[in-house]
């Protein structure tokens, strides 16, 4: 049986942390029933200080909620370091 998957997107200086096989700043990652936002950040050893803008399906997840926010099959988790522009 194949594992459920979600889409991981890493941008800007976090692009270097994309897993092998990633294309266009995104990759499919396997998830289980207990996978959380914080769990993905930890598993990929993303530097905590650079995980500033963390969006699950486009919605911001504050640092205090990342440990308890589950990732469901088909979700999109996108992460940026601090960004500015305009």
């Amino acid at each position, binding site marked *: 049986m194949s594992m459920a998957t979600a889409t991981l*997107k890493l941008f*800007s200086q976090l692009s270097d942390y994309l897993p092998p096989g990633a294309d266009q700043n995104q990759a499919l990652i396997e998830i289980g029933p207990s996978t959380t936002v914080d769990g993905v950040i930890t598993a990929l050893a993303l530097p905590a200080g650079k995980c500033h803008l963390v969006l699950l399906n*486009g919605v*911001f997840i504050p640092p205090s909620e990342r440990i308890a926010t589950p990732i469901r099959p088909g979700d999109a988790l996108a992460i940026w370091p*601090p*960004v*500015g*522009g*305009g």
Partner: protein
Amino acid sequence: MSWTGKFLRVNLTEGTVKSEALNREWARLYLGQRGLASKYLAEEIDPRVDPLSPDNKIIFTTGPLTGTNASTAGRYSVVTKGPLTGCIACSNSGGMFGAELKNAGWDMIIFEGRAAKPVYFHVENDRAELRDAQPFWGKTVWETDAGLKAHHQDPMLRVATIGASGENGVLFACIVNDLHRAAGRSGVGAVMGSKNLKAVAVRGSKGVRVKDPVRFLKSVAEQKQVLADNAVTSQGLPTYGTQVLMNVINEVGALPTRNFQDVQFDGARRISAEAMREPRRSDGKANLVTNAACFGCTIACGRISQIDPGHYTIVNRPEYRHASGGLEYEAAWALGAATGVDDLEALTFANFLCNEHAIDPISFGATVAAAMELYELGAITSKETGGIILTFGSAEALTALAELTGKAQGFGRDIGLGSKRLCAKYGHPDLSMTVKGQEFPAYDPRGIQGMGLSYATSNRGACHLRGYTVASEIMGTPVKTDPLVTDGKAALVKAFQDATAAFDSAGICIFTSFAWTLENVAPQLDAACEGEWTADYLLEVGERIWNLERQFNLAAGMTAKDDTLPKRLLKEAAKTGPAKGLASGLATMLPEYYAQRGWSAAGVPTAETLKRLALA
């Protein structure tokens, strides 16, 4: 000190040039640049004047920190009554021109009247004179810049100029200095053209005096360290530029797409900062060559790009193969997502053309997007376009129109009307995505609610640079707020608008505000300028400026009815993303905003507010 204390008044009708003393009381009340020049404009012209008539004036103005060694202190603004909007216009630019003007010993230049034949204004320190611009009339920005440098045998001459677009009344013509920095919005270039003023060319070597040099140097060093310690201003902006936002804003569902029909663009990644840095399959080189800084800037967010030499746009045009000003976020959005075009090289070429011919890429791209929707509806046909197939996603149409609009030729003349007049001309005024006649920038108010209020109340028409609540609602600067709610947004918008007016009047770049607040600006101003400058006082100055601009617009004929958004954004909900099902909640926010401002329900500053701000 820090102000030079004098400015030039140039009467183009009479051909006279005079030096005048700066009004020091107004400098205390309005600081400089945007604020101070707005005060002069409001005092000197009838707000109901035709913007393209000789009775309008156009002011090139610096701030007190311009030309000093404070970080980013190279800014200048162009203040006039804008032809695109009928509102007060203030367009801010970087590059080297502003610092050069200040170093020539002038706080600003006021141009009035209209020259009988094309002229340019040449300033070399104390010597300032009008000169014949006939040889440069009809020339591009790049030709004029090179021509003036050659004529004066001075490669360090700093030139701010218009192209054929400004000469021929393109309503979003801008003024480009240093080849690819622009006083971009509201059609200030068309005002210059209406006065037969082709260019301002400046050389200054006098330096800028500050009140307390030792304290100033110490303060500047401390505040540069703040920028160096901030992840956005020290790493994010120099490495990725403003274009880092393309994927961010798409992900949050606020990237206006195909004339705001959608809020997400499936081609966003292909036109983003990340794409600009990747080697091309064709030649192995990246679109982005390097970053670049304006005068005195320690951030260096500018993009320098080189187009694929084999791309259709330049394969037979070697004159465009050099590196030049590349895509910033707002331009990439307007030329790209707004029109549905995802060809990065075509967007870069269109951006080069906007710089070369001095047209605002935001208004240009947004107007092309409106024209594409009109074309797909059948309201515009190939007969009007001269055979251009104007469908969404057509890079060929986009680049052809950039050239035609820049040269004010063919269907480019219709595009040069701007979105509001174009949509009215072809019978669909509701399809114009504008406020007060100015096209939106790159944030959909359905996905970032505060920006809807910011656009609706902006004193120069739809604009992101008058109150950039995106910083809070998306980026978390200075605090994170929820982009999908209207609660608290009235106060947030007011706070951003007032602080921004103070930044814009100091001579520094608003991008410092990703790391600085007015608490960081005040000690630099206080060490440089006569008087006492605290953060609290600067906020008061900002609020005063906002109300002065509002008073001008009300006197020009604007009313609360103009503080609104297009029906599409108020009635049609976002179809995808986090904002799916939401329209703009402007109706909820606007009354609260008026109350926060101390304005009546009709959007008019009360007598008490005017008295509090020393405006009555």
